[in-house]
């Protein structure tokens, strides 16, 4: 199918790979269908592009790129919603916020996107504990000041 995207105009995308965010994404609750686009092989980040609103597109990365040990527990509520039967079926991404000065970009580790790769259902899960930050700097202070 053809999708209108924010950063690539129109692209061809495999309809069976479309993700179904059953509750939408907080702030965009009406938008349920998203395409996870891989911009280039070998790059870790992805575009999470809304199929229904061309202007809504998130840049996401695997949390392992930010924290070595992103050891979170997927809540019972999430497991049920996504019908996850095996932990290996879950794929996690975190959403990046990119300000004017992109060296200050942050990752939302507190509310990861969880995808059930088997059925393509997805949610953004808000973690209940305080271990991880809503705005974790991607670049450490020392990297920014050069």
């Amino acid at each position, binding site marked *: 199918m053809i999708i209108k995207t924010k950063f690539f105009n129109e692209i061809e995308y495999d309809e069976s790979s479309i993700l179904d965010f059953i509750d939408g994404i907080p*702030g965009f609750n009406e938008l349920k269908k998203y395409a996870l686009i891989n911009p280039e092989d070998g790059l870790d*980040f992805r575009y999470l592009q809304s199929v229904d609103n061309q202007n*809504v597109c*998130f*840049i996401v990365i695997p949390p392992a790129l930010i924290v070595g040990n992103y050891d979170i527990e997927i809540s019972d509520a999430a497991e049920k919603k996504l019908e996850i039967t095996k932990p290996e079926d879950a794929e996690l991404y975190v*959403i990046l*916020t990119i300000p004017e000065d992109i060296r200050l970009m942050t990752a*939302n580790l507190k*509310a990861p996107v969880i995808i059930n790769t088997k059925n393509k259902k997805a949610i953004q899960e808000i973690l209940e504990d305080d271990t991880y930050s809503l705005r974790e700097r991607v670049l450490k202070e020392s990297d920014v000041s050069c």
Partner: protein
Amino acid sequence: MLVLTRKSNESILIGDDIEIIIVETGDDKVKIGINAPKSLKIFRKELLEQVEEENIKSAAPGRIDIDAIKDIIKK
């Protein structure tokens, strides 16, 4: 919205599976205990609002310098 007045140690039942207990009251805060099935998410409301706000910011940028972002992520 249903509004009830409770004192410490009093409870409210919602449906068959949820209980809200007033654990302790203070001057400007109240400690609330919640018994509910694990399948229900429970969190402070402002957390959802913060996540919404952050998502809206994340979806906002007009143009993205992809190469610069690639460089940063590679680090």
